[in-house]
């Protein structure tokens, strides 16, 4: 094949010469070239290697269906594997590399596979590699994994970088009346019609220019049409692929913003992922030209006829000197004529026995040699085609009928409408016998097909179908009354003759269907012999259609051959389902900016900066970052939390508890609501009092715990755990809006509105009092344990204070509107510092509550009953509440269930970990008898302690030694079981 650039014509800009590198060697092309056209004109024939046999692959098409010319673009972390050279626009300095080949595509050592291809039939790997050959001796997976190691290295196509992708991606959201996919004659006609009816139209084109097939035809006419589109207000997206259609008329689009630029602006993303919500979709995506299966039909120098046409007219490249065009339909005639007019020696081979005289006369007049009733059956040549053996049809058979020398073979095996997007919506393609192609079945989706995607073959019909689609949509939206009529699909002057495979009996050939995966006609027949007769089995067994092109090139041939093997019609065999995306989409674009730190929203307390400025080390708690500990003088975590715990018990500590969920409960039935959702009674909670409560799920398992403060007759302030905050508010809303619609209650999340701190320790009251406008308001008499008051801090800062304690100390939770967070904290911190108090974080909070045997999410893991958690006395027997009917069902009331206990090490210097399983010393196996959920060093007790659960609870295990087994961290520790309230069991300190 000797390609050359013509002196004039085409849409390339000959004044802009671009240099590019192929496997590190410098070449030139023009602005307007694709990488494929530039490689073609530089006569680089072997672009890649196939997946299995490493056979040479050249350029086979001019579009997204390409499955031969897959290359790697760019270097290092900008490396972009598996790019179709046919859709990559050339830019100055572009660096492209061959892939799946060593040392390169031209001389590939992997080509040795091709010598053994007789053994590598479809599915051969399911039949061996299990054990030691030849009879697969052995057991287990080791031998397979030994082979697999080599197979994995040989498999794959391009190689991706392991360094982070340095590029940025964006998301866009948009809306329109109608989105039109494809800007060929049909798409443009539809867009103009819809826009003239005042519809909001988005026209999407995957190519760098509008026009579709106009681009290789008539550029003047196209210019006018484009300016019409712009004047009509059509919104145009270029270099954008509608990669999928989803529910409710939502389309996913990928816009390649800067992949075609040598230098891109600093602020420009590489690609943009659009989500477009439209009321209607017009699919004008054209059709793919099919190949024909014959011997060595994968040789470089064999291309689709339409792509030869595109290279000639759009890129001004005459791809060969001696060209054979093989066809079974009318479309290739004009290509042959254009090629001849451009100076090539052209022979046209038509599989049909006769066609109308107009077609042949035109060809002959242009100097094209025409031969009827013949088709290619074997290509000759080593790394590129130099001769094609032809066959003549006789009934259902093909007989050898000589050969033609050529340097380029252009094939047209018929056309397949691009119905992928309809397939995404579950609309099955159905076989159309007359036109030998799959067309979309009838459907009720808001989608209209136009142009050759609908099965129209001549451009007049395509334009009319586009117009009709535009009018139809206008009708649907009540915009216009004029009528429209659709031509019948089809429209060849001479009918197509279906030809899928050309085989001459007695001649062994390798005829390819899937060019990337090396699936051959024989593979299809083998699959049939082995019982893989459904199209889905066929696909999966042979891997036909599973390569990068997802069957755009070969599926129909494979299906036709299976139909033949089965003796069925193609319509009875059906087709596989095309799944999104239409063409591959980078994960970067889909992720957009929601990566790295922005992967998930970060929740921070209004005291976040204050905490940091006071030395906090933060920890992740769900989406929140909370202070973990406040190290002083290079303290470690454990130094710090032990000091914080001890200081709090000795004097006072402050902890930011803003992350707790906070809910305003308002209305005359508020009390009734709380009484139904908490296990313990709330009916008689006085105004100015708070109560700790447990909520169960419907199934009687503990959902959450928290406090509710009665602020007035009809208003409560509820706190929930940090982890369950979102769940609890949604749950209350569900109950009120669905189940208990008679209750007059409003619930409102006020988690963001209030900032909260806990001030705990014997000196807590003293510190807070100094900050209050009326200090006596929190005296022991005015604010006893569980008392609530709404008052003001100094500087008239409004606040809510409750005397509640998670630490077991006398303690207060103080909430202020979030804007006052810093003022409150500053004020109280000054007083706290004066008495030697401290700030404490999550670790000390844990230590304080573990000492007291208070449970959190570590204990309440969604499988624990209120009795298991040792809180059975909070489960009222005098009322019904959510979960009351279910909480003791069946084995949930078994006395041998695991119950909450405290855990001490036998040797007081020993430590143990949460997540350990508690086992009997004689039985370190199985599920054990219990488990440890939380651990800490207890400054008060002077040793390590834990909380956990053990079968039968404290009474069964007191005074017995058990083992905390932690094999995953290589630790076994003797422990003893104690009551969970390990410190101040009577609770004197918090009442004091």
């Amino acid at each position: 094949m000797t390609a050359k650039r013509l002196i004039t014509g085409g849409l390339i800009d000959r004044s802009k010469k671009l240099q590019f590198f192929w496997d590190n060697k410098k070449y030139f092309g023009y602005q307007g070239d694709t990488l494929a056209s530039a490689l073609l004109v530089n006569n680089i024939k072997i672009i890649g290697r196939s997946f299995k046999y490493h056979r040479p692959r050249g350029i086979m098409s001019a579009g997204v269906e390409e499955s031969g010319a897959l290359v790697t673009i760019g270097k290092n972390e900008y490396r972009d594997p598996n790019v179709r050279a046919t859709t990559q626009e050339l830019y100055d300095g572009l660096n492209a590399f061959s892939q799946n080949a060593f040392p390169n595509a031209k001389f590939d050592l992997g080509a040795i596979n091709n010598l053994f291809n007789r053994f590598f039939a479809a599915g051969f790997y399911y039949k061996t590699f299990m054990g030691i050959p030849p009879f697969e001796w052995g057991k287990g997976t080791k031998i397979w994994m030994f082979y697999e190691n080599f197979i994995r290295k040989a498999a794959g196509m391009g190689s991706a970088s392991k360094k982070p992708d340095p590029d940025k991606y964006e998301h866009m959201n948009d809306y329109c009346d109608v989105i039109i996919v494809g800007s060929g004659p049909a798409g443009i006609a539809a867009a103009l019609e819809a826009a003239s009816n005042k519809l909001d139209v988005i026209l999407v084109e995957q190519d760098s220019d509008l026009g579709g097939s106009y681009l290789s035809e008539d550029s003047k006419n196209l210019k006018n049409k484009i300016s019409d589109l712009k004047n009509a207000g059509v919104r145009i997206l270029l270099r954008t692929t509608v990669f999928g259609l989803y529910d409710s008329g939502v389309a996913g689009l990928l816009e390649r913003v800067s992949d075609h630029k040598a230098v891109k602006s600093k602020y420009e993303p590489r690609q943009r992922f659009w989500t477009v919500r439209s009321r209607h979709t017009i699919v004008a995506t054209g059709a793919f030209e099919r190949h024909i299966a014959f011997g060595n039909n994968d040789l470089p120098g064999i291309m689709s006829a339409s792509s030869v046409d595109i290279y000639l007219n759009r890129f001004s490249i005459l791809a060969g000197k001696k060209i054979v065009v093989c066809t079974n339909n009318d479309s290739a005639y004009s290509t042959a004529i254009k090629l001849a007019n451009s100076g090539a020696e052209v022979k046209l081979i038509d599989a049909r026995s006769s066609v109308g005289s107009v077609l042949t006369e035109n060809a002959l007049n242009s100097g094209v040699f025409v031969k009827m009733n013949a088709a290619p059956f074997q290509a000759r040549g080593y790394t590129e085609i130099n001769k094609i053996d032809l066959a003549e049809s006789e009934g259902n058979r093909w007989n050898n009928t000589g050969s033609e020398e050529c340097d380029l073979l252009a094939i047209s095996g018929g056309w397949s409408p691009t119905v992928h997007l309809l397939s995404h919506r579950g609309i099955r393609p159905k076989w159309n016998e007359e036109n030998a192609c799959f067309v979309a079945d009838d459907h009720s989706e808001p989608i209209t097909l136009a142009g050759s995607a609908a099965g129209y073959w001549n451009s007049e019909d395509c334009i009319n179908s586009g117009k009709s689609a535009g009018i139809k949509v206008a009708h649907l939206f009540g915009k216009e009354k004029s009528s429209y009529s659709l031509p019948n699909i089809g429209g060849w002057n001479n009918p197509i003759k279906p030809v899928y495979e050309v085989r001459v009996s007695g001649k062994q050939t390798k005829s390819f269907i899937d060019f990337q995966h090396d699936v051959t006609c024989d593979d299809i027949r083998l699959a049939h012999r082995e019982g893989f007769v459904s199209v889905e089995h066929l696909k999966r067994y042979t891997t036909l259609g599973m390569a990068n092109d997802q069957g755009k090139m070969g599926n129909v041939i494979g299906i036709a051959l299976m139909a033949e093997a089965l003796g069925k019609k193609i319509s009875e065999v059906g087709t596989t389902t095309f799944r999104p995306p239409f063409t591959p989409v980078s994960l970067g674009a889909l992720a957009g900016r929601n990566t790295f730190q922005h992967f998930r929203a970060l929740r921070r307390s209004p005291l976040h900066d204050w905490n940091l400025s006071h030395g906090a080390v933060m920890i992740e708690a769900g989406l929140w970052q909370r202070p973990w500990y406040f190290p002083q003088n290079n303290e470690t975590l454990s130094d710090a939390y032990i000091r914080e715990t001890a200081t709090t018990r000795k004097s006072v500590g402050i902890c930011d508890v803003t992350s707790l969920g906070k809910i305003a409960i308002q209305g005359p039935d508020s009390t009734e609501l709380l009484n139904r959702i908490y296990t313990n009674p709330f009916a008689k909670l006085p105004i100015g009092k708070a109560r700790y409560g447990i909520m169960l799920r419907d199934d009687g398992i503990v959902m959450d715990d928290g406090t509710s403060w009665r602020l007035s007759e009809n208003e409560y302030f509820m706190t929930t755990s940090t982890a369950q905050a979102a769940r609890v508010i949604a749950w209350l809303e569900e109950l009120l809006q669905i189940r208990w619609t008679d209750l007059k209650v409003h619930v409102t999340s006020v988690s963001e509105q209030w900032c909260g701190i806990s001030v705990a320790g014997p000196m807590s009251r003293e510190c807070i009092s100094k900050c209050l406008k009326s200090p006596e308001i929190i005296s022991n008499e005015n604010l006893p344990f569980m008392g609530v008051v709404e008052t003001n801090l100094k500087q008239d800062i409004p606040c809510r204070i409750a005397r509640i304690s998670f630490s077991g100390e006398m303690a207060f939770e103080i909430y202020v509107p979030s804007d006052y967070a810093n003022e409150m904290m500053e004020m109280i911190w000054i007083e706290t510092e004066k008495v030697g108090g401290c700030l404490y974080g999550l670790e000390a909070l844990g230590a304080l509550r573990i000492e007291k045997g208070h449970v959190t999410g570590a204990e309440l893991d969604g499988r624990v009953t209120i009795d298991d958690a040792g809180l059975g006395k909070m489960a009222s027997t005098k009322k019904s509440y959510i979960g009351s009917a279910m909480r003791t069902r069946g084995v949930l009331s078994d006395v041998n269930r695991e119950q909450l206990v405290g855990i001490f090490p036998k040797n007081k210097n020993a430590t143990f970990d949460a997540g350990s399983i508690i086992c009997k010393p004689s039985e370190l196996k199985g599920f054990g008898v219990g488990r440890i959920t939380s651990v800490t060093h207890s400054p008060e007790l002077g040793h390590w302690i834990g909380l956990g659960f053990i079968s039968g609870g404290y009474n069964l295990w007191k005074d017995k030694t058990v083992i905390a087994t932690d094999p995953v961290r290589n630790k076994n520790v003797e422990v003893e079981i104690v009551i969970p309230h390990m410190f101040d069991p009577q609770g004197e300190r918090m009442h004091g």
Partner: protein
Amino acid sequence: MTRFNAWNVLKNGFINQTGWQRQWRDPVLKKEYDVVIVGAGLHGLATAYYLAKNHKINNIAVLEKGWLGGGNAGRNTTIVRSNYMMPGNHEFYEHSLKLWENLSHELNYNVMFSQRAHVNLFHSPAARDSNARRYNTMLLHNTDAEFWNLKKLKKTIPHLNYGPNARFPIMGAAVQKRAGTARHDAVAWGYARAADSLGVDIIQNCEVNGFVRRANNIDIIETSRGQIKAKKVGFAVAGNTSRLWQMAGLDSLPIESHKLQAFVTEPLKPILDQVVVFGVGGAHFYISQSDKGGLVFGGDLDWYKSYAQRGNLPIVQDVAEAALSILPCLGRVRLLRHWSGIMDMTMDGSFFICKTPIDNLYLNAGWNYGGFKTTPASGWHFADLIANNRPNKIINNHDLKRFEKGVNIDERGAGPDPKLHG
């Protein structure tokens, strides 16, 4: 039947692959069977195989509406592991893993089970400790389990995001080395071929349309190919269990059908050797690389009930975000295909292999996300139940009455909200 081995592969290379037979027959439907399994998915085929092999029952039919292995068998992300901790579950999943380890030899079909390790990342002390409970339970059952610290993790998988720009910095990982991936289609085909060779009739394109009941038994199964009598009937139609259940005249089940999407990228040279799981901040993501080179991954359910085998964009976006957060090198890697399957999501995230209110009907259902990995054990235990008409010790609690009985086998502790048991 020609055995699958290197010798025969070599031989067939010289005789144009003409020495291979059908991997399973296309048998004529008989009038009566001892056992009819509805559903020629992984579990149905495995059940038939073990009924024939372990229990010497040879008059078995497996009925399939479409083509065998056409449901979730070919739609999953092929992960095999046994890191379960609830009584009944752990023994079951570990039994399954043990069967997987020799499955290729057992079936004489390379199912490509590759024990490339399952690496479950954790990001906080709390997550580390809750993993410790699970992985300790595994070790106490002599199931392999280990923790990797950051140093080991960085050495083994250097391109995870350990950087300061990670939203959730990695602390370490809980690892099961014996876990891995397998070739999903091959498992279906392997069981089909092996069951067929033991005389099981696999009837494809045979839809069940109804049941005729006599007393408390299913007497006759009405199919698109005619009526069949069956002594025992087993359902193994995950995704569509409720529909068949109601066809048998039964009412409700502790099951909701949800769809789960799965994703594969273009084929690449090796970039990830392990199965990596990332779950934090409400995210859920798992990824591995197939032998063909595609990265296979998935995430959460689409969050609403569905029988449609197609997904929507929010989850597509969600998994891409998770992918890049954990493997920032994947930005330029392209998604080749995404699809979805219908899951039987249950009220506690655990499965059912049990008897039913109909005396000769047995149920295999409710596999949630985890059906693929259980294939061998599911078939083994379902066959055991059908043959002996009683549940064995391991699956004794995996019945429909467990909710009323208060038996808890909820691995996640999510409670009776099926969509939360991912």
